[in-house]
């Protein structure tokens, strides 16, 4: 509990530094799915004011063979609106329950449940042609283990589309996962974006597929 209190204090300090800017428009629901070699993740959240959203987070960890179920709070800590670009800094925190996903045919003993904590800090900058983002994530899954990861992404749109048209992006994402089997990796992906829906299809340097989906309601 002391560790959680310290992390909360750090998060509070960071958010106090932030200027009050909206994370999304109030009353918006958003669904975010991420599926790759490391995880299947679902985050459904509700933006309840101009800088916070709160929602359900489910995450199956493929390496730990565990499932996190919890509540996640997101905060837009800073936004820069420029005539041709936008930049953002987000903080994220999730608290929940971690359970073993042992199948009946597995011979190992089933691990008992534990508490889980997630912290994330991310930033992005984009124009209608270029995209850059970076994020740092930390998971404390109790007896299931701790792990961290760093991600960076760059993208370019082959054409600039107007409102309501199909937007297409080509992107490269790199990661560093110190506690994973593959510490360094990269994924090439294509993003299709139309109206309220965004789909990303990709493949990593190990040949594993990526499928991400975001929808705003």
């Amino acid at each position, binding site marked *: 509990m002391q560790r959680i209190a310290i992390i909360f204090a750090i998060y509070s300090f960071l958010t106090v530094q932030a200027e009050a*800017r*909206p*994370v*999304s*428009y*109030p*009353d*918006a*629901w958003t*669904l975010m*799915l991420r599926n790759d070699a490391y995880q*299947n*993740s*679902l985050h*459904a959240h509700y933006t309840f004011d*101009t800088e916070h959203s709160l929602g359900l987070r*489910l995450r*199956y960890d493929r390496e730990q063979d565990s*499932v996190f179920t919890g509540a996640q709070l997101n905060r*837009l800590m800073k*936004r*820069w*609106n*420029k*005539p041709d*670009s*936008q930049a953002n800094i987000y903080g994220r925190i999730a608290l929940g329950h971690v*359970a073993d*996903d042992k199948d009946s045919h597995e011979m190992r003993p089933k691990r008992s449940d534990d508490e889980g904590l997630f912290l994330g800090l991310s930033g992005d900058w*984009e*124009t*209608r042609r270029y995209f850059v983002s970076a994020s740092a994530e930390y998971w404390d899954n109790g007896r299931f283990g701790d792990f961290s990861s760093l991600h960076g992404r760059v993208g370019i749109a082959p054409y600039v*589309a*107007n*409102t*309501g048209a199909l*937007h297409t992006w080509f992107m490269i994402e790199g990661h560093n996962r110190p506690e994973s089997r593959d510490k360094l990796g990269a994924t090439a992906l294509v993003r299709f*974006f*139309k*109206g*309220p829906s*965004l789909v990303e299809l990709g493949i990593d340097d190990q040949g594993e597929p990526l499928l991400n*989906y975001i*929808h*705003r*309601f």
Partner: protein
Amino acid sequence: MKILPTILTTAMLSLTPATSFAKDKKMSGPEVVEVSDISVGLSGLVCDFCSIALNKTFKKRDEVSGTYVDLDTKTLSIALTEGADISNEDIVKLVKKAGYSTTKITRKDGSEFTPEKP
């Protein structure tokens, strides 16, 4: 447990869009530009998520009968309901609430308003 995210996702995708779009009876296409009463210049517009945020924020207002965001011109066009008006200050606040910044407001009568930079 591994299929739980898939099940939840399928359920949400199959239900939510229908309920969401059914509520919106106001104008939202490029035709709004032709009949608009107010043109709002914007900064921070980079994608369709931006236009959705602005459209939904403004359409909650009774004074507004339609909106359209043009990413190319970085403009929000607002059509008002007959006899209604919305102040420049309210427009600036609503744009900020949606997550963006107002650069200039131009009305049908030719009047212009440039908000002070924060």
